[in-house]
């Protein structure tokens, strides 16, 4: 006798045990430590922190280890953990102008106050496999000398002074919180940026790339890209003043985009903005391009029908945890709905074939 799908419970337990064994890999190879991941796979850790919306390198490294290096799975672990955390309050806005920069470049000016600082970047490396890394060697040491933290003003501020770039309206309005309120459309810019900041790097990159290739083209210059640490401070109600509670590494990208002017605005440059946790350049630049494309309405531009201009399309599909969950759920049993389709197709087919036969008989 057929015993339909019995044993689900044992199958799950066994699958989990097997997964745990596979995660460890060959026991003859030393186990990877969380600290090793945090220090040596830092860019993976950064991505997990950015898309997981939780700044904690140790937890991100743990998630990567647990997820066997699957970064979307690691983001998922972080997100699921994050939702269980109590909220004590909100920090004050971070002042990125006061960032202690380890990298800062501007593509729009040859030199700017605060200087061009390449920092630790892959940019001009030749992408040749370095076989020396297969052997364990001494830790490389970069030459350097201590410098005084420089004052590094925002590059777009210089354009602002001449009225050549749009003024950003200042607002003290508390931004919405995507994780506490359902997203309702149309969303304001703060919510859009929040959504992009935790959006999938690949998705945001693809959207940004599409604008460069002509789908809602709006040529972007990297006015400034800066990476460094910023202080986070919080007002403690009992103290009635702000206290520094820590620091975070951030990547900020401001683009300067062409704008011909509209009925209401004179010709001037416009802005795109990207901000992510930690060193995440590709994501921050992509975010700035997509942010700019999504601003067509407020700038009085035409909607060219491009995907990157479509707020609902971008915001509803950028979250990789939502996307991967729904995509992978089609692995779940669907035999009840499939059965109903099967019967429907059989019935429609039978009627169609009968009609064909009758037509042939005539």
């Amino acid at each position, binding site marked *: *006798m*057929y015993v*339909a*799908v*019995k*044993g*689900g*419970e044992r*199958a*799950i337990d066994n699958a989990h045990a097997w997964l745990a064994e596979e995660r460890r890999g060959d026991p003859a190879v030393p186990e990877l430590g969380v600290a090793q991941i945090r220090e040596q796979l830092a860019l993976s850790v950064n991505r997990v922190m950015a898309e997981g919306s939780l700044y904690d390198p140790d937890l991100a490294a743990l998630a990567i280890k647990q997820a066997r290096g699957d970064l979307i799975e690691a983001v*998922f672990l972080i*997100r*699921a953990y*994050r*939702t*269980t955390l*109590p909220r004590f309050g909100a920090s004050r806005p971070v002042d990125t102008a006061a960032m202690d920069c380890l990298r800062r470049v501007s593509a729009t000016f040859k030199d700017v106050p605060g200087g061009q600082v390449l920092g630790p970047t892959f940019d001009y490396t030749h992408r040749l496999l370095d076989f020396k890394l297969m052997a364990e060697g001494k830790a490389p040491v970069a030459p350097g000398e201590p410098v005084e933290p420089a004052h590094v003003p925002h590059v777009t501020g210089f354009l602002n002074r001449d009225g050549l770039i749009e003024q950003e309206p200042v607002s003290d309005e508390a931004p919405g919180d995507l*994780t*506490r*309120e*359902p*997203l*309702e*459309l*149309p969303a304001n810019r703060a919510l859009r940026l929040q959504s992009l900041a935790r959006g999938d790097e690949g998705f945001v990159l693809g959207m940004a790339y599409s604008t460069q290739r002509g789908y809602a083209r709006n040529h972007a210059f990297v006015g400034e890209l800066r990476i460094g640490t910023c202080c986070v401070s919080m007002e403690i109600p009992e103290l009635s003043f702000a206290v520094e509670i820590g620091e975070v590494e951030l990547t900020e990208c401001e683009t300067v985009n062409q704008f011909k002017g509209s009925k209401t605005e004179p010709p001037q440059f416009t802005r795109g903005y990207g901000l992510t946790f930690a060193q995440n350049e590709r994501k921050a630049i992509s975010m700035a391009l997509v942010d700019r494309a999504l601003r067509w309405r407020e700038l009085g531009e035409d909607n060219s029908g491009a995907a990157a201009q479509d707020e*609902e399309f971008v915001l*509803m599909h950028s979250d990789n*945890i*939502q996307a*991967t*969950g*729904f*995509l*992978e*759920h089609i692995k*779940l*049993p*669907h*035999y*009840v*709905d499939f*059965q*109903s*389709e*099967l*019967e*429907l197709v059989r*019935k*429609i087919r039978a*009627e169609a074939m009968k009609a064909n036969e009758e037509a042939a008989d005539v």
Partner: protein
Amino acid sequence: MSDYNFAYLDEETKRMIRRAILKGVAIPGYQVPFASREMPMPYGWGTGGVQVTAACLTPEDVLKVIDQGADDTTNAVSIRKFFQRTAGVEVTEATAEASLIQTRHRIPEAALTEGQIVVFQVPIPEPLRFLEPRETETRKMHELEEYGLMHVKLYEDIARHGQIATAYAYPVKVEGRYVMDPSPIPKFDNPKMDGSPALMLFGAGREQRIYALPPYTKVVSLDFEDHPFVASKADHDCDLCGASDTYLDEVIVDDQGGRMFVCSDTDHCRCRREAGHVGRLGVAA
């Protein structure tokens, strides 16, 4: 027991979900937006249902979880285990014993009773979604009770196929007002919603929507006078228990394409066999 709050979610979140549920109950069939949380299982795997269940569960509840009508399918096992671990509630496979039933893709065969809650897992809560992909548009259509597009779709089905070519997630109209997606249950189950004495709650986690059918709500499957709705099923009896009035799964049993039909509701089938009913391929209990 774990260090998590009862039924995993914190009390504030549960309160937020309960408010959405109450609003849903007050406006049957209306999709209430709610701030869905990331759960420790993936979106699309029942996170909406799990959050609704978590918000409704009390320590005295007896929980039943089914997927495709069965208590023993992998995801049903996983969700049941989750609540055993985080809420420590009693669980059962018997429909009649359960005070709360979380389900995916089926409504149990046994008649539901007053005081029971059925929680449906919903992938796409918007019945108009595949006619109009934009949420901004579909919300407007519901507001204006503008359901012409849906009727045109059903009409085109009839023109093309001679019948309405929707076999599951068959749209219904609730209390003469909102068109609602009943989740991907086979249309065989649709009549069970009409005037049900149980409270029916629908949770869509990824899409952040909750909606509800309070007990004894009028639920009508959309149709036309000359093409009335038919709750269809496979034209067989259950090969294990002989039931002729239950929804059946078709199972391929050999390389030659031989097949058998069995009740999709495993608890119902078991009860019938224990009561002495024997189907074509069954053995007497």
